[in-house]
């Protein structure tokens, strides 16, 4: 059944809507009010049109019955009484209802946009949804002012208004939890950098924020949470049950997880800690005991410790075995049996030294460290003066307690910067 007018070409949803539908016999069937599409990869395929048959009755016109969509009317080879009511099934989505005027995430540009129109490609009598129109021209098309606006822009500014289209591949609809779930398989949101994703979450309203967050996989959720504003972190976690929350928090770095748990209401934090893996929970509890703006509150305990007698080869093997789960691997700290800090090796030292060398031969014993109670200013001074990316934290007896990564300091001091 080839289309008579345009076998191939682009079509906007706004062009189709409100068009009247007649059959070959000239019988008036109704007016198009929506389109149904099957959400398949790579592009959704239109399976039917919803017609307004009378004031309170809608019916489904299957796409295969559509002969052509012309300027004035859409022609179908079906009789009025053969039209049946529409029932939602499978992955079918009502396009106008779910997408038009709603918000989508542009995963390429990592921004939230509002849908002004949808663009289809018509090929071999199949209608694919390929673009989402988010531009001003799309808005004007909806208002019915495309031509005057084009002319005005041309006349006043010698500027040709162009359509601003996002490929469907980069559009993640947000309007309903169903649509979010539908697209998890395609993992569009996890293509966005967590820091950008965090910005998007912050821009969304509360409801959609937690819906989007819950649609993310564990790892992405954890990474995104690390980048999110503490207040929003708390509200996102508050919407989850303790088991789900602990799964995500376990994926976060130790110091981030600690900060987050410290911000949560005591009861909630307790319940989450109970659900977490014992060893992680213990580390977190230890860190939670320190105030947030002191070295103890900023440090992580997730790093590598070596003995002076360890060889470079052994050290490298340890890094390979545990590095995946450890916050800090660029520095290794060398201690005696009583945990006194003796020196530090960098990953660079380890890579350059021969495998049999023992660490006490290559370590730097001019230790730069801070005390548990040191405040953010002191720590920042140390970072600035010595140009390191992490500083070990010791107690009054010189025993190693943890290490502060530059990133963690930055989070504490960033609030003083810029604003």
């Amino acid at each position, binding site marked *: 059944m080839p289309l008579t007018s345009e076998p191939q070409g682009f079509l906007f949803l706004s062009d189709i809507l409100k068009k009247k539908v007649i059959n070959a016999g000239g019988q008036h069937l109704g007016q198009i009010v929506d389109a149904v599409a099957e959400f398949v990869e790579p592009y959704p395929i239109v399976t039917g049109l919803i017609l307004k048959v009378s004031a309170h009755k809608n019916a489904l016109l299957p796409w295969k019955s559509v002969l052509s969509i012309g300027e004035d009317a859409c022609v179908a080879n079906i009789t009025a009484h053969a039209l049946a009511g529409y029932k939602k099934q499978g992955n079918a989505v009502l396009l106008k209802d779910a997408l038009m005027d709603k918000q989508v995430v542009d995963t390429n540009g990592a921004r939230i946009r509002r849908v002004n129109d949808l663009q289809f490609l018509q090929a071999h009598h199949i209608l694919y949804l390929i673009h989402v129109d988010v531009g001003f021209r799309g808005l004007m098309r909806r208002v019915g002012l495309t031509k005057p606006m084009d002319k005005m822009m041309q006349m006043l500014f010698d500027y040709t208004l162009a359509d601003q289209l996002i490929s469907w591949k980069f559009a993640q609809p947000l309007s309903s939890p169903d649509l979010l779930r539908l697209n998890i398989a395609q993992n569009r949101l996890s293509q966005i950098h967590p820091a950008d994703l965090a910005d998007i979450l912050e821009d969304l*309203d509360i409801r959609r924020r937690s819906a989007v967050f819950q649609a993310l996989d564990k790892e992405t959720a954890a990474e995104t949470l690390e980048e999110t504003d503490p207040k929003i972190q708390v509200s996102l976690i508050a919407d989850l049950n303790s088991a789900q929350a602990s799964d995500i928090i376990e994926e976060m770095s130790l110091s981030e997880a600690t900060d987050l748990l410290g911000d949560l209401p005591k009861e909630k934090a307790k319940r989450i800690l109970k659900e977490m893996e014992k060893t992680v929970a213990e580390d977190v509890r230890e860190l939670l005991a320190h105030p947030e703006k002191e070295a103890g509150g900023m440090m992580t305990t997730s790093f590598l410790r070596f003995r002076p007698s360890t060889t470079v080869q052994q050290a490298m093997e340890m890094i390979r075995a545990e590095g995946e789960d450890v916050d800090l691997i660029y520095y290794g700290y060398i201690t005696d049996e009583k945990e006194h800090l003796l020196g530090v090796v960098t990953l660079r030292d380890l890579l350059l030294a021969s495998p049999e060398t023992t660490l006490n031969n290559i370590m730097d014993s001019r230790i730069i460290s801070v005390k548990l109670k040191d405040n953010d200013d002191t720590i920042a001074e140390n970072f600035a003066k010595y140009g390191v990316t992490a500083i070990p934290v010791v107690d009054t007896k010189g025993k190693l307690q943890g290490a502060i990564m530059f990133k963690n300091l930055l989070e504490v001091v960033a609030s003083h910067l810029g604003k």
Partner: protein
Amino acid sequence: MFDTLISLRKKFLQSGLWRLGLFFALIGPGIITSNVDNDAGGITTYSLAGAKYGLSLLWTLIPIMIALIVIQEMCARMGVVSGKGLSDLIRERFGAKITFYLMIVLFLANMGNTLSEFAGVAASMEIFGVSKYLSVPLAAFFVWRLVVKGSYKSVEKAFLIACVFYFSYIISGFLIKPSWNIIMTAFVTPTVTFDVGWLTMAIGIVGTTIAPWMQFYLQSSVVDKGIKAKNYKYTRMDVIFGSFMVNVVAFFIIMLCAVTLYTNNLVIETAKDAALALAPLAGSYCTWLFAFGLLNASLFAASILPLSTAYTICEAFGWESSINTKFVEAPQFYGLYTITIFLGAGIILLPNVPLISIMFYSQVINGILLPFVLIFMLLLINDKKIMGDYINGKIMNIISWTTVAVLICLSLAMAFAAIMS
């Protein structure tokens, strides 16, 4: 020792005082909106109402307060439940075309309102002997910097504290020692005079108290606060308290002008006239308090209106709209914001500008816009898809549709009267 502490804590929890604490943590949107509502236009209208018609319009504040509570409560509820702004909801529910034209009208209406705020700044500073060619550009610059510096939130708090200056009207009201018996009788006895001027003034009071932009502003500030549905009752208290406060201030302005200016048959045209005329009757401190109140109100509203306008429109069209973005990232937002301030302040400075008729027509546009906004609101709040279990109950629907019907009639009457005259 420890036991006493625990029992104290228990008492504290039982006493419900902690609820009060929670209330103060969640308030803000309702009270701020209401205070912005007593802006330059509001103060002018109330002064004129008192000076021209004495105490006879005082009773209208009771139904106005009820209407204000009914409407703002719905807005706040929509904000809390849907988590979306009003223009967002209108766009998603009613489509691009309606939203587009609605936003154009809203822009014009808000433009007019901003203009009258800057006029209020000019008028109040002239009482202090400062030329408008100095005060208006300074005020415009101050307002523009708020967003560029991103210090809007902290300034909002400063304004909220400055709202205490509304008490200046209340203090003035007590200082002139009016006879409370007569005032209270007038307040509780509805009287209607079938005089065109009187009726126009009554509609004017309604129009200035219930303005379209407020609904957009209130809803988005409620959304910004991120209040959960279970804590909604505190927001409702916030809104009711705010609406009450607006009307207390309005009451005192009308009363003050009625007791002083009306009794002495003084004719005034503006709020500035009112302030100046008060000096010989109630003492010069009264003039100063009045002028200061007007300045604070105008500046507060002038800081919020352009921002609210830019937010509302950008939200409807999905344009980037955050104070934290750079100019190039959010050109529409900054463009709208700047134009509103620039024109609002600029027009005041033009020589021979027909200020009174501009303000009058801005009231007319507000009046035409209000019915549409109210009807959209009622349709939205009764939409199960958006509001779930929080849709209006039967009684609430009767009250709200009646309120809206009366307001629509009044707005249309005002627009009609304006066009006829």
